[in-house]
């Protein structure tokens, strides 16, 4: 019971912790006050409780695949919010100081929405797990210890990424953070497509390759890569295609934005390379 609680909580926390650590590091580099974190945690926690409470109703939607549809919708919304965030953050880096306040506020709101969605989805699963396994009260302590260990490992990985980014110069932190965010967000598109395949909303196909022998999704590296780049050992063509699309959209947005920023104004800071 203890080990399985460690693993399940670690898996849920890892993804949210990665996303959080990147956003916090980049907002520190941008000189934002960090009050948005509090709002994210508060709204996310409420969202998780409400979502866990209503998962029974949600599951019955669309002939029993409501869970897949709503989870993929959350993933896709998070994805588009992340693309929006990257564009806003990039523009912010080039803006004059007098314009920075209002665009900074918008970025903080977008970050709260992203974190709210991530905590709602991952948190609701943790809540369901906790109440399910502690229903019979004989392994209360083991579950709580396991969950705490799992959460601590996940948060530690988040801290690791945070300190890596915070110790870089602003320019390199922005570039590295954006690259990480692009990969995390493409992974979300891949997960969303997988859920829609599971629900039979997207056509199911035979997998195009199988890299399980090379790197299993079960392994620690597989799990980390799953959270970080959406690693999938047996993707189908549609899933791989959507992943690629999810990867390319923010890249194009950034390239176009950089081109326009370069053309229109002399940059206040030098954030040229990505």
């Amino acid at each position: 019971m203890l080990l399985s609680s460690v693993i399940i909580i670690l898996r849920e926390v890892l993804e949210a912790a990665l996303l959080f650590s990147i956003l916090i590091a980049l907002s520190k580099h941008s000189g934002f006050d960090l009050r948005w974190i509090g709002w994210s945690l508060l709204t996310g926690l409420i969202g998780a409780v409400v979502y866990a409470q209503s998962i029974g109703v949600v599951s019955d939607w669309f002939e029993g695949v409501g869970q897949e549809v709503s989870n993929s919708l959350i993933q896709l919304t998070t994805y588009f919010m992340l693309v929006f965030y990257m564009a806003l953050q990039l523009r912010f880096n080039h803006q004059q100081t007098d314009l920075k306040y209002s665009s900074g506020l918008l970025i903080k709101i977008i970050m709260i929405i992203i974190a709210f969605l991530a905590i709602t989805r991952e948190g609701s699963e943790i809540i369901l797990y906790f109440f399910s396994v502690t229903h019979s009260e004989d392994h209360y302590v083991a579950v709580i210890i396991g969950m705490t260990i799992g959460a601590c490992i996940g948060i530690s990985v988040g801290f690791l990424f945070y300190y890596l980014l915070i110790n870089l110069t602003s320019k390199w932190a922005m570039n590295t953070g954006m690259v990480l965010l692009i990969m995390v967000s493409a992974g979300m598109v891949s997960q969303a497509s997988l859920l829609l395949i599971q629900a039979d909303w997207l056509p199911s196909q035979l997998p195009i390759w199988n890299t399980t022998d090379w790197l299993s999704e079960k392994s620690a590296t597989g799990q980390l890569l799953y959270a970080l780049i959406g690693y999938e050992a047996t993707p189908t063509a549609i899933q791989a295609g959507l992943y690629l699309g999810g990867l390319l959209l923010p890249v194009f947005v950034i390239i176009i934005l950089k081109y326009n920023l370069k053309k229109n104004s002399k940059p206040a800071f030098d954030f040229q390379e990505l």
Partner: protein
Amino acid sequence: MKQSSSLMPSRVVLLFLVFFCQTKVWAGTPIINIDIRNHLFIPSEITIPKNTKVKLIIHNHDSEDEEFESYELNREKVILGNRKGVIFVGPLPAGEYPFFGEFFPKTAQGKVIVE
């Protein structure tokens, strides 16, 4: 000439009929029921034909929630206590695909055999 053109509409109708009958057979996704009782999958092994999509209906008879999970099948779904859940699986190449209940992995184990 005249005869063949008068036959045309009925041929078209026939063609449509054949087409729709065929798609109806195709759309008939096989359904497989799996029960969860005392944190066990019953049956714990199911066999499905290769390159075929099937619809798993998982009935959770326990009062505790369970999460159907499989890395090999790329599937993950919470099945609430005393409820059922639908999961589409496949098409898959022949092989063995283990699945487990993430909330009670010690007992809730099973596999899909594709042949």
